[in-house]
């Protein structure tokens, strides 16, 4: 086979849109061919990444979470010993409902009470009794509880559970009761287990599916990525959390609590072999693209306040410890 001349990127579908925007611009503005960007999930991407070194393995894995130790080990075992970690920014996670519906101002506690399998009422653990938002807190609208949350395959789910449900569990004080009654581990698990009576609907598809579900069930509230919401402001109405409206600015400032970092991992061993690899990485994190004024931010990426550090690390080809 002739030597591969285009960069191969794979991984998270959350990072995919940003990667394609960069790849497209990279192809247009340089003499290198446009990188091929696959989607398939962080897991599959990292797995391919750790398959080994050489032309028929990929160069970059996109991930919506940091690489795990077990994955680093697998990488190492396959000879992928030098990995550069690049954090490109943050993905904001927002709650949105049909544009014609009620306005919502949530707290994490509301979400816990609405979706947890068990809640604490009068100091006792009971199966979640709430059917309407107004039952949870009087100033919430009188509307059926129906939430479309990311399925367990999505990284977003983890963030949702940790930063919303678990936080709500703490906030309501349910966490204490759970740990007291069930012990440390089970108590924590009880905090994060969602009700299964159809009020909380898992979505294994993508945000377009969540949107379609909201359109066919207008009293539903969905969990979306910020960028998805920003592209569909004509159909969706976003809810505040703790009084903060999500936006790239509020998230970057740390005011809006629910977000997660996005990464990509570069196989340093391929730099020099695959033409344009280093250039692509540098191009990606350059201020013109990943900065707050760049197209990525315009699309909805919360740009990283520490972008400069990342740029230096990339220039130095700094690898992560394995």
């Amino acid at each position, binding site marked *: *086979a*002739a030597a591969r001349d285009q960069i191969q990127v794979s991984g*998270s*579908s*959350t990072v995919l849109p940003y990667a394609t925007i960069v790849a497209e611009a990279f192809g247009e503005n340089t003499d290198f061919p446009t990188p091929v960007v696959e989607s*398939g*999930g*962080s*897991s*599959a991407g*990292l*797995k391919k990444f*750790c398959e080994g070194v050489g032309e028929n393995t990929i160069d970059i894995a996109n*991930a*919506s*979470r940091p690489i*795990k130790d*077990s*994955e680093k*080990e*697998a990488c190492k075992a396959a000879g992928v010993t030098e990995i550069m970690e690049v954090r490109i920014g943050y993905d904001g996670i927002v709650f949105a409902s049909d544009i014609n519906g009620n306005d919502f101002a949530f707290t994490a506690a509301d979400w816990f009470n609405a979706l947890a399998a068990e809640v604490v009422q009068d100091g006792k653990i009971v199966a979640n009794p709430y059917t309407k938002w107004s039952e949870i807190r009087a100033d919430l609208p009188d509307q059926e509880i129906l939430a479309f949350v990311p*399925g*367990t*395959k*999505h*990284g977003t*789910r*983890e963030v949702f*559970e940790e930063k919303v449900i678990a936080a709500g569990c703490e906030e309501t004080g349910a966490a204490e009761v759970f740990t007291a009654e069930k012990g440390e*581990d089970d108590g924590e*698990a009880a905090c*994060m*287990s969602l009700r*299964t009576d*159809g009020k909380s*609907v*898992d*979505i*294994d*598809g993508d945000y377009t*599916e969540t949107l*379609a*579900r909201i*359109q*066919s*069930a207008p009293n539903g509230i969905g969990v979306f990525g910020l960028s998805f919401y920003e592209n569909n402001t004509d159909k969706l109405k976003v809810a505040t959390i703790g009084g903060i409206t999500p936006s790239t600015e509020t998230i970057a400032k740390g005011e809006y609590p629910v977000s997660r970092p996005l990464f990509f991992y570069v196989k340093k061993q391929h730099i020099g072999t695959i033409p344009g690899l280093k250039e692509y990485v540098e191009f990606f994190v350059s201020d013109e693209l990943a900065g707050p004024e760049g197209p990525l931010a315009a699309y909805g990426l919360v740009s990283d306040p520490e972008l400069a550090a990342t740029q230096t690390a990339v220039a130095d080809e700094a690898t992560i410890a394995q």
Partner: protein
Amino acid sequence: MPVSWTILIVLALSGLGYLATRSRAVRLAGGDIRKLHSRPSYYGWNAALLIGVPALFVTAIWRFLWPATSPALISAVALILAAAGLAFALTRTAPDFRARNAVETTVKALLMLCSSIAILTTAGIVLSMLFETGHFFQQYSWTEFFFGTTWSPRFGGGSDLGILPLLWGTLYISVIALAVSVPIGLFAAIYMSEYASGRMRSIAKPMIEVLAGIPTIVYGLFALITVGPMLRDWFAQPLGLGSSGSSVMTAGLVMGIMLIPFVSSLSDDIINAVPQSLRDGALGLGSTRSETIRKVVLPAALPGIVGAILLAASRAIGETMIVVMGAGAAAQMGLNPFEAMTTITVKIVSQLTGDTDFAAPETLVAFALGLTLFTITLGLNIVALYVVRKYREQYE
């Protein structure tokens, strides 16, 4: 890609070899082909096969097993083999050479090779999943996997990964899908082959086949946007069976529509192939057309029809998109057909394409699910084989 050029060259060579040996055979027979053991074209084919088969075979195997080898070397060897084949074929061409037998033996071997690809594929599938399945069972108890009734993977570990709810969902959805597609498909096939005019059949059949070609995502959206809400508003809510927009019923119905052509087109061909004399026999005894069809034609066509239904069932088991959008992603075991459920296949896909740690049981479970599903369908197929054997009616 020199290898692909090699293939083209070898093919051209065998074409030339065909022509050369064929005319040589005729010449050797002094123009009277009756003196030849076989028809001249068999001599030609013999040469073509001798040139092409070893060369292409070696190229393919070599390229596949030792991909690192220099393509030039492979090409050289292939061309040498092709040349040797040509020389050999020419020397062997003689009037009393049993060319037909030689060709048929080779062709038979090739046919055998074709059917062994199925075995190789199976072996490949099992092998490619066995390893990871092993990893999974090292990290997760097999009793909980096979007998667990909860499916709830978590990122942080501590997941419940019981297959039973998925298995139940798979069966439930497939049964509904077949309950839709088999009667519709079979009746459509019967109508097309027994009642419809040639014109209607020639239009209806390809039209129905388009259903098989519509990407499943379209069906998925159809389920999500049209059928799901419709079932919810017209059936589930009035009947007090819940208010879920996605349900087993939605996915089953929509999948059933997709599967219609699998049943109808294949069955139609098989029914059409039942000899007319059998129909005449039944009609001559005063049976109505429908009696003829039910009592004589269908039993005679049974193996083919069962094959078609099995194919439809297989597709139902293997379908992802429609289930994701139609039935939801919730793994639960219930009898209410208006509740959301999910299938093994969906979870294989979602665990493989998700964001979990690829070495964690939450991802590896996909392989275990795949292998388990494989074993279950194998069992079902064995049963089907015996049932067909038992009821097969061989005509003539």
